[in-house]
């Protein structure tokens, strides 16, 4: 438990130990999440970054125990939430945790809401599932909408989702996520479907709410700018594994893993003419038959012989900065 020494000042909220989630398909076993370890402390905002199909979403669904059935299955590992293993809980106990202690914000706000039910009703739902409610939750819902800064909440609670704009829907979803004051909020690409100005507003809102409620947030995204705005720490995922963990500032200054270096290089910088943008050659590995050594080795420019044979262990570069690469 090396993480423990680093986060001594913080209490651990969520610990993932060697979690493996696979999909059993006709073509074979797809190892979507292949041995992921990380720790989230109380009140921490952590970004989980990676390209499409690298296992980010499946990691978060594994935490919620909502991996698509029947093909998907969490094969092994431990997910400790407040020192209790979520994988050993019954479905019923899990349901009591979902939406109450751990909640999630989905990525497409417009289709995530039931078009036939009023926003006010849907906002109250997480509360209704977890508490005995008699009477109307109108006041509470108005309060929630106020919290996420939807204008004119008193009349807006009676609207249907289609009467909301994309940004407002996302705000409403965030309101649903925080309705029960969860300890952990997993935001799965909360800003992908929105345009840039709204993105900034939503991110600021999330940051404000987090500061107020002291809950932890895992922000799943493929947008490095988003992470830079609100996260304190960053996990880079590639091919079903976490390849680098670093505080955000360190990561932007000196990324260690060749993949991270490539990522940073490929972000265009405003005002600096760069000509053709950098791109990482090759294709992400098929998780159906992943390379035996480092997942990134076939695309890596600095790959040596051991890279193709043995998966590199985690190396500590400095406090809080860890990388899985043979170069270090």
């Amino acid at each position, binding site marked *: 438990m090396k993480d423990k020494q680093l986060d001594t000042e913080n209490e651990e909220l969520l610990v993932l130990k060697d979690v493996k989630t696979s999909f059993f398909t006709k073509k074979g076993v797809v190892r979507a999440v292949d041995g992921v370890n990380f720790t989230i402390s109380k009140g921490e905002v952590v970004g989980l970054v990676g390209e499409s199909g690298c296992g980010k979403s499946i990691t978060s669904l594994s935490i919620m125990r909502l991996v698509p059935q029947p093909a998907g299955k969490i094969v092994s590992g431990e997910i400790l939430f407040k020192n209790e293993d979520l994988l050993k809980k019954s479905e019923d106990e899990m349901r009591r945790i979902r*939406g*109450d202690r751990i*909640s*999630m914000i989905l990525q*497409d706000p417009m289709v995530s809401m039931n078009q036939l039910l009023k926003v006010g009703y849907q906002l109250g739902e*997480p509360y209704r*599932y977890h508490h005995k409610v008699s009477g109307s939750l109108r006041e509470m819902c108005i309060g929630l909408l106020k919290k996420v800064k939807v204008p004119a909440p008193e009349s807006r609670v009676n609207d249907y989702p289609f*009467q909301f704009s994309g940004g407002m829907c996302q705000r409403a979803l965030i309101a*649903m996520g925080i309705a029960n004051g969860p300890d952990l909020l997993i935001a799965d690409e909360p800003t992908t479907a929105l345009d840039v100005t709204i993105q900034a507003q939503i991110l600021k809102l999330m940051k404000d709410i987090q500061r107020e409620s002291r809950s932890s947030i895992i922000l799943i995204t493929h947008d490095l700018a988003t992470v830079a705005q609100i996260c304190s720490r960053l996990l880079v995922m590639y091919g079903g594994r976490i390849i680098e963990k670093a505080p955000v500032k360190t990561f932007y200054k000196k990324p260690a893993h060749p993949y991270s270096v490539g990522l940073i290089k490929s972000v265009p910088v405003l005002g600096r003419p760069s000509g053709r943008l950098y791109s990482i050659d090759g294709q992400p590995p098929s998780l159906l038959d992943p390379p035996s050594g480092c997942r990134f080795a076939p695309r890596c420019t600095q790959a040596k012989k051991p890279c193709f044979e043995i998966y590199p262990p985690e190396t500590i570069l400095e406090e809080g900065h860890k990388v899985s690469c043979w170069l270090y």
Partner: protein
Amino acid sequence: MPISTLAFDINKSWRLNANYTVQENVFGFLYGYEADFQGLFNRKSYMFLKKGKKSSEKKLRVRIPYLGLGCLGLFFFTVIFANVISPHDPYEGDLADSTLPPAWEEGGTTRFLLGTDMLGRDVLSRLIHGSRISLLISVGCIAFYGTLGVILGLISGFSGGRTDMIIMRLADLWSSLPGIILLFMLAAVYGPSAKTIIITFGIMGWPYYGRIVRGESLSLKERDFVRLARVAGCSNLRIMVSHVFPNIVNTVIILATIDIGGIIVLIATLSFLGLGTQPPSCDWGLMLAEGRQYITYAWWLVTFPGIAIVVAVLGFNLTGDWLRELLDPKQKLR
């Protein structure tokens, strides 16, 4: 021209004419005219009329099927006010008044507007009371198998896997059973009656609804709002009842309205064959069957029940068609 081709042609002419006016549309009387609604009809509020608020006020053009609604209105009017409007007792007749022609024919009297049958019973009164039987049986059947179909379809589509397979194979098995034979059997054991029909078709009809509801819920359960409900800690039963079911209601309403027409015809057929309600019941099909022997000199005995069936079926079908168009979110209202 058979009705189906006629309807198709009308359909086409209506669609092709994007800017048609009431005068241009020859078939408007059948298929319906368009009317403007300001703020009265809020389509996305998903059902029925709702007074629009200022923010959501929308001007929508809605086609109103006057003929369909008119037929349906007439049908329901006779159902509700059967006792008030029928001039005679439908079951009592005087043999002295036997087979009197309609009022406008030679020998007819204004006492019996549509004439009398061979037992001297008033045809009009029997038609009016017959509407109640038609509605009772058809709604009974649909309520029975509709409920069964929706419940099984929801469970099947939502649970997937083995449950789904078992229910769907059961549905296949079920639809291979001949309903008429079962009806013969039940009629032989319990006697042919409205109850027997409702029970037989109530049991037999569910696979149709089951399959459609299953298909709908299969696609609905993959939708993000179901995922969201699950993420919020919602139980499966609750997702089914409060999230998936409201999304299916439209389909079920439309199916049911269109189905009722078919069932009215079916009941008439069964009564005609002697498997349905028995004399002295005034079911339309039974009236047809009874009048058949006298068709050469008492044409009114078969004509008027036939017209009644056509009116009722047309009313339900046109309205059902209209509802389908209205409630289908994919069909844009112009």
